[in-house]
């Protein structure tokens, strides 16, 4: 259920931020009904809170798996799972309808906290679930503390990726969380750092979206939404890794570099996105201090370097 747009301190949440959350939520829910390489450019009066609110909107969206590769569990596959109070990566030694065995552990019941890792996924250590957010996660997911980790893991196969200024994003999450504990922001967003935190956090912060060659394993995965926060994130990010996932670019009007990015995008002459779901089209109207443009970036030639 979408929390009401309220804030305990600082008064009611500004309409611009509410609209941003709605755009992000609707964009995530419409992701499979929109054109490839959809770019939503939103200029904001300040980047403060913009990324966190947009990420919140995306996390709140319903996003069902559609035959995703992480669901294909078979013996011998490397998986990421929640077991014995920890996030573990292990090789699945046995699986049938009742139980699954991996890393000396036996898991019965729901399997939505187990995810097959793509081939080439980097090795990583087991991780504990931070106690300080456990209660927030449990409250946000309306479950008991005992199963909070499992429920948390189950909602992480398609994280929101936020590119640009990871520390500032984290500060915004903290600020928003302190604003009103009823929203359970820390638990809902719980940002991880880097794509290698996939399956362990609902939101991943990165400096920039990498090129396919830098993280080829990532092409097998699908984020729910790509949010680019600021001009640096935009300039440094690749836009070819997930062509099927829309990019929501948040550009500050205060920044001279942001002005240049907006001018450059206009100069690209990308065609405007026309075939959008009506609900999304309604939200993509300018107002409340937001400039909103929807473009479809032309598909890049696979070997355009060869032309040179």
């Amino acid at each position, binding site marked *: 259920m979408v929390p009401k747009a309220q*804030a305990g*301190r*600082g*008064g009611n*949440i*500004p*309409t*611009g*931020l509410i609209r941003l959350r709605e755009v992000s939520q609707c964009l995530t829910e419409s992701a499979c009904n929109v054109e490839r390489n959809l770019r939503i*450019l939103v*200029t*904001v*009066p*300040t980047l*403060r*809170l913009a990324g966190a609110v947009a990420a919140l909107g995306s996390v709140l969206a319903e996003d069902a798996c559609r035959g995703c590769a992480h669901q294909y569990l078979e013996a011998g596959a490397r998986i990421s799972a929640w077991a014995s109070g920890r996030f573990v990566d292990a090789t699945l030694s046995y699986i049938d309808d009742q139980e699954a065995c991996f890393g000396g552990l036996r898991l019965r019941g729901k399997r939505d906290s187990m995810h097959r890792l793509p081939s080439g996924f980097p090795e990583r250590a087991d991780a504990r679930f931070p106690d300080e957010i456990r209660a927030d996660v449990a409250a946000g997911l309306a479950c008991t503390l005992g199963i909070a980790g499992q429920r948390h893991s189950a909602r992480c196969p398609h994280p929101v990726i936020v590119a640009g200024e990871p520390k500032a994003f984290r500060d915004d999450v903290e*600020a*928003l969380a*302190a*604003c009103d504990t009823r929203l359970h922001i820390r638990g809902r967003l719980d940002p991880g750092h880097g794509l290698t935190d996939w399956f362990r956090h609902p939101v991943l912060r990165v400096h920039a979206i990498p090129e396919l060659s830098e993280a080829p394993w990532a092409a097998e995965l699908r984020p729910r939404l790509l949010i680019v926060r600021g001009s640096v994130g935009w300039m440094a990010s690749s836009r070819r890794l997930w062509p099927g996932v829309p990019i929501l670019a948040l*550009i*500050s*009007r*205060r*920044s*001279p570099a*942001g*002005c240049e990015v*907006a*001018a450059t995008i*206009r100069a690209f002459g990308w065609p405007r996105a026309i075939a959008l779901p009506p609900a999304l089209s309604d939200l993509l109207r*300018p*107002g*409340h*201090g*937001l*400039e*909103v*443009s929807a473009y479809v970036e032309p598909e890049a030639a696979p070997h355009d370097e060869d032309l040179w």
Partner: protein
Amino acid sequence: VTTIGDVFALWRAAEQPTVMVTRLPWPELEAVTNAAIGLRPSVERSTVAAEMLRGALSTRQLLSATPLPPNDGLAGISYLVRRINEFLEGHPGHSLDKSLRALQSSLVALLASSSIVGEWFANVLSEYGEDENGTPEAVVVVPRRAWVQAVRAWLHKEELTCADVMTPGDLRQCCTARKALILAGHPSSSFSSGWKAPDVAIREHGWLFTAPPAGTIRLALTADAPLLDEAALWLAPSQDHPILAIEDHGPRRETPSSHQWVTNTFDATFVRRTPRQHVDTDDGVPAIEVVTASRHSIFFNPELGPRRKL
């Protein structure tokens, strides 16, 4: 320390800011502008014409964007008058004699006048005070850092101490919203320079109107300044940006002179020079030939190089 309330206030301020434009007639400043524009066709062939044009427009930039009086040292009017005097005495019967004398007399008249913009600042600032935390409700925006100290001194002298003075660069870092943002001068000229064209300047500083750290923007424009083009303040195409409430109670017609000074004078592409290869002239002195837009050839000493670009 920025609180969540401060950030919310910034967002709210941008939702529907009010832009109140006041038109100020300043005939002496207009006369200087028109006299300086009269020198425009001569800048290609005359260093003094270029220098005076640049100087007069810099004076206009300062006087239309700050409350400083015409006799302030930063305006440089005395220098320009003295420089014209020296030139005319040293070059009797020069072809620019008439134009320079016209500029000189208009500068003298301007020097004797008082700043209309300063009066406006004084009136507007008297409407604002301090909030309960002792923070000034209004911020005076000064386009250049070099002018800040002089503006502060002027405000202190006028006992208008209930206002902060900031450059746009300072305001970018400022995360608290005030009641009013007070600025003067057309953004496309106030913030432009030899390195920043007017269209770029207004786009980069449009956020002072579209994402302001205050709910109200009070802007003073001289009567001959061009209209404040709302579309130029935003970054997105016209169908993608919100409508800004601009209250311009002044004359809304676009005069030829205002159009000329804002578009042509600062436009670097207006003067096109075509450098050619190093040539030896008939008198045996090596020189660099430059062909101007008017297809005149000018030869420069290869060591000293051409004069600075306008």
